[in-house]
């Protein structure tokens, strides 16, 4: 039989919503020609938990726990984003000490979130060991958080007007010990383990290249945008809290292993960000002042004047924004959450139709965008 006689057919394949490498309940239908993906269509909403409706039914303080559950991997930053938007609306002043504590916990949470991204990305690509290593160190951070606020995942720690509990000296020394343990020894270990592994590089370099202008047009933010070489970081570009007093670099992808904006770049931005986060934590611990850690009055309830505002902070996955409309009562009239993963994953369909993507690369691309479905669907 000659080659021409072998008939090939296009096939419609469904991946998800229950699929180990979609990081949750994301569903994508792909039209394939052999191993090659011709076109894909993403379906989301399998975890639509009605955050915005819940926010309209509870008072301002009660909404905080719901923000945790949007992006459960970096709950601190979501809390902060929401708290910051209400503080902007009401004009509540946050005590200095609380601002420092917020930076410490948010950056630690960013490390924990990137660790999970690192571990599961390895798992997606076929390396199981990094997953176990990442969880080993993530547990150390969770232990600190547990000491601090009693929860392992959904902290509700950053609240309107400050933070829930004070940071004791014991916890501060725990955090310092963690920083010394983690940076640089452990991150170097990770780099040896996965980042510069030959198989890993050939699976991720030159795969899923996102050009910078396309990324911006699709609203991609956070490490995924920085992987495409755009140095946009809200901590530096639109400083909130005390970030303007601290020193840190914004790592961007440079196409070391392939083209700028490929999966490896996005992955590496996260690894480099962890070092910067530890650097921020160290600085914040060094000059943390004494004083109150919350605005007691705001903890009893807030009642903003009628008005509306949009406030954005830099989460672990990108721009976390809250558009809050107040009608003068103690219940929000409307809270809209701008979730970074929602925008980041919307580029997937474009990527698969734009370039030649193999079926196995699809997993690599989804993993490198690092989505959290709780946030995509809210």
């Amino acid at each position, binding site marked *: 039989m000659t080659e021409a006689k072998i008939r090939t057919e296009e096939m419609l394949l469904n991946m998800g919503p229950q699929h180990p490498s979609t990081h949750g309940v994301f569903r994508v239908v792909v039209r394939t020609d052999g191993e090659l993906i011709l076109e894909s269509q993403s379906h989301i909403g399998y975890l639509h938990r009605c955050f915005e409706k819940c926010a309209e039914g509870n008072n301002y303080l009660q909404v905080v726990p719901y923000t945790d559950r949007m992006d459960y991997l970096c709950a601190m930053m979501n809390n902060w984003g929401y708290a910051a938007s209400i503080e*902007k609306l009401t004009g509540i002043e946050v005590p200095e000490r609380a601002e420092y504590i917020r930076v410490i916990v948010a950056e630690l949470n960013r490390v924990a979130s990137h660790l999970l991204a690192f571990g599961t990305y390895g798992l997606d690509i076929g390396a199981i060991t990094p997953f176990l290593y990442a969880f080993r160190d993530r547990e150390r951070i969770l232990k600190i958080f547990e000491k601090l606020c009693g929860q392992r995942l959904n902290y509700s720690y950053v609240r309107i007007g400050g933070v829930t509990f004070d940071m004791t000296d014991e916890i501060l020394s725990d955090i310092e010990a963690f920083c010394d343990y983690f940076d640089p020894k452990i991150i170097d270990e990770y780099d040896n383990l996965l980042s510069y592994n030959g198989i890993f590089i050939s699976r991720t370099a030159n795969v899923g290249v996102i050009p910078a202008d396309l990324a*911006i047009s699709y*609203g991609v933010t956070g490490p995924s945008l920085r992987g495409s070489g755009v140095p946009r970081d809200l901590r530096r570009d639109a400083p909130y809290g005390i970030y303007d007093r601290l020193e840190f670099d914004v790592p961007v992808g440079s196409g070391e292993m392939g083209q700028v904006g490929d999966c490896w770049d996005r992955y590496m931005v996260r690894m480099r960000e962890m070092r910067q986060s530890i650097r921020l934590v160290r600085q914040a611990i060094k000059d943390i002042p004494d004083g109150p850690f919350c605005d007691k009055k705001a903890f009893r309830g807030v009642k903003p004047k009628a008005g509306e505002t*949009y406030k954005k902070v830099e989460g672990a996955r990108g721009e976390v*924004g809250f*558009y809050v409309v107040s009608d003068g009562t103690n219940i929000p009239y409307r809270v809209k959450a701008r979730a970074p993963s*929602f925008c980041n994953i919307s580029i997937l369909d474009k990527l698969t139709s734009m370039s030649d993507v193999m079926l196995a690369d699809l997993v690599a691309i989804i993993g490198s965008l690092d989505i959290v479905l709780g946030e995509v669907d809210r």
Partner: protein
Amino acid sequence: MARLEIGQIIAVLKEKLPEAVSEEVLDGVDPVIVVKAEQWAAVAELCRDDSRLGFDLLSCITGVDYPEREEGAEIEVIYNLDSTANLHELTVKVKLPRSDPRVASVEGTWATADWHERETYDLVGVIFEGHHNLVRILCADDWVGHPLRKDYEPPDSFHGIKNVIY
């Protein structure tokens, strides 16, 4: 490239499209401009393409339902624009009648608007004209109603599953 104040942004908009901005609310927490619905598509293009403005990132689209306004029931669609190069931002509002909320889609201007508009359609029920695939995105395909309308009543059951309300 430089960061512009809100006054300068409005001046640039008025220079090109004198009729478009119908209202400026500058005394709120965030300055907001209200744009006429029929001009919004043109304003959006201008916002993106004018190098002084350079709003290349559409952060967020919010739909807000106001069933009890004195001037008639309204739905507001709010667009948060951001410039990655100039580092300024702008909040644009479009006011639509609640009975027939229609506004032009800006999917061609910012690709991210595709999913944001589908979400706003799904939850608030705003119709974006010219959108290539305006179907539900978050709720199930055969869901009835738009949950974030203020008068929304959740169904008693959906496909045989009771929706118990405690």
